[in-house]
């Protein structure tokens, strides 16, 4: 499973991107479960968030959803944090 996260906006307006390929990883099942829940609660089009809030684009195996701070589900927040931290 390929998980990509792109973060735009924010006070600085600086974009960040990272992705994780879960194939062959010992924790692949955990990633997969988290990613599926995060995508399930995402939106098909970008919401215009609050002023200076981050906007996120999550792509899992080619399916893209959008979400914005501060209205993230716990799964979305956890997935975004992990991908931006551990991904490349």
């Amino acid at each position, binding site marked *: 499973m390929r998980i990509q996260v*792109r973060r*735009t*906006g*924010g*006070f*600085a*307006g*600086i*974009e960040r991107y990272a992705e994780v390929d879960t194939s062959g990883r010992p924790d692949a099942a955990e990633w997969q479960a988290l990613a599926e829940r995060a995508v399930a609660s995402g*939106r098909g*089009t*970008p*919401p*215009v*968030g*609050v*002023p*200076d*809030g*981050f*906007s996120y*684009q999550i792509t899992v195996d080619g399916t*893209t959803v959008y979400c914005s*701070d*501060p*209205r*993230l*589900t716990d799964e979305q*927040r956890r997935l975004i*944090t992990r991908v931006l931290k551990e991904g490349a």
Partner: protein
Amino acid sequence: MVPDMTTNGGFEPVFCTVVPPHVLDKLARNDDPALAGPARRTLMRDSELRGRRRVTTEFALAAAPTAKAPSDRPLRTIYDAGHGTALPGTEVRGEGTDPGQDATVNRAFAGLGATFELFLKAYARHSIDGDGLPLDATVHYDENYNNAFWNGEQMVFGDGDGEIFLDFTIPIDVIGHELTHGVTQYTANLTYYGQPGALNESMSDVFGSLIKQYTLGQTAAEADWLIGAGLLAPSVSGKALRSMKEPGSAYDDDVLGKDPQPATMDDYVRTGRDNGGVHINSGIPNHAFYLAATALGGHAWEKAGRIWYDVLTGGELSDRAMFTDFAALTVKAARERFGDGGEELQAVSKAWEQVGVRIP
């Protein structure tokens, strides 16, 4: 890929409202109270604001006496999110209390006070709604959170990750920037997308910088005209996040990249990202303000700031205003407040001409 939201004017009608009403309607009916609650509050606030703006504009009731005059003192409350994301968090400091051990809390408290002070002393505005609205801020939001934002009701500040960004309460202009988003919401309510969104961002940078200048007692010539000075970690190559004096020159770093802001319309960036480049193209109206303020000299909040404030709060600025609409209103405001043929009118007109915004 991000769908191409770019249009000729950098403006896409689909994204004309801050959050599209149909989305809010759907969210408000969501089973999850975390989603439904804010959406319901936003819908209520939006309808209230729209009603108020219409009444204010159409019936010129802006100066109507209220039942009780708002106080000349702020009503501040600082909350601590404890590195979580639940808002507002635990109350840690209220009005009339002494500074505590947490420097972040104390900075946020002081920054709210400084912002209240500028709007009151320079423009006789009582708090961000003009009617004494209590000022709430949450600090220590999330972990290593590299951002600060205005959620429609309060300010939220992250601690930064310490590697790229430090604590977002450090620069007073960042605090002023977030609160000014509140002022804009209660007045022109500029749509947060494309050119109106860049104007919304520019309002926050202009008054954020003026709050810093007012606090330091600086003239336009003495000010650094930087947004977010002191926010970047020592290892980052840069002096701030944005420069109103020289847009595009604030940072140039291996990790952050280069400051993408244009100073003139020749370099206007057409993009769908960042809500249509709201933090990018704000460099153009930011630079126009800098040019007008430095041409006039003295304290920037007295003349250039006064003109910008008149436009933001005057009731004529559309929520979908483009740069030219805003520029034309500043020229009109300069004439109305400081007279025809004055140096103010000349400085403002010339500033827009220099950044390539043509006034119809």
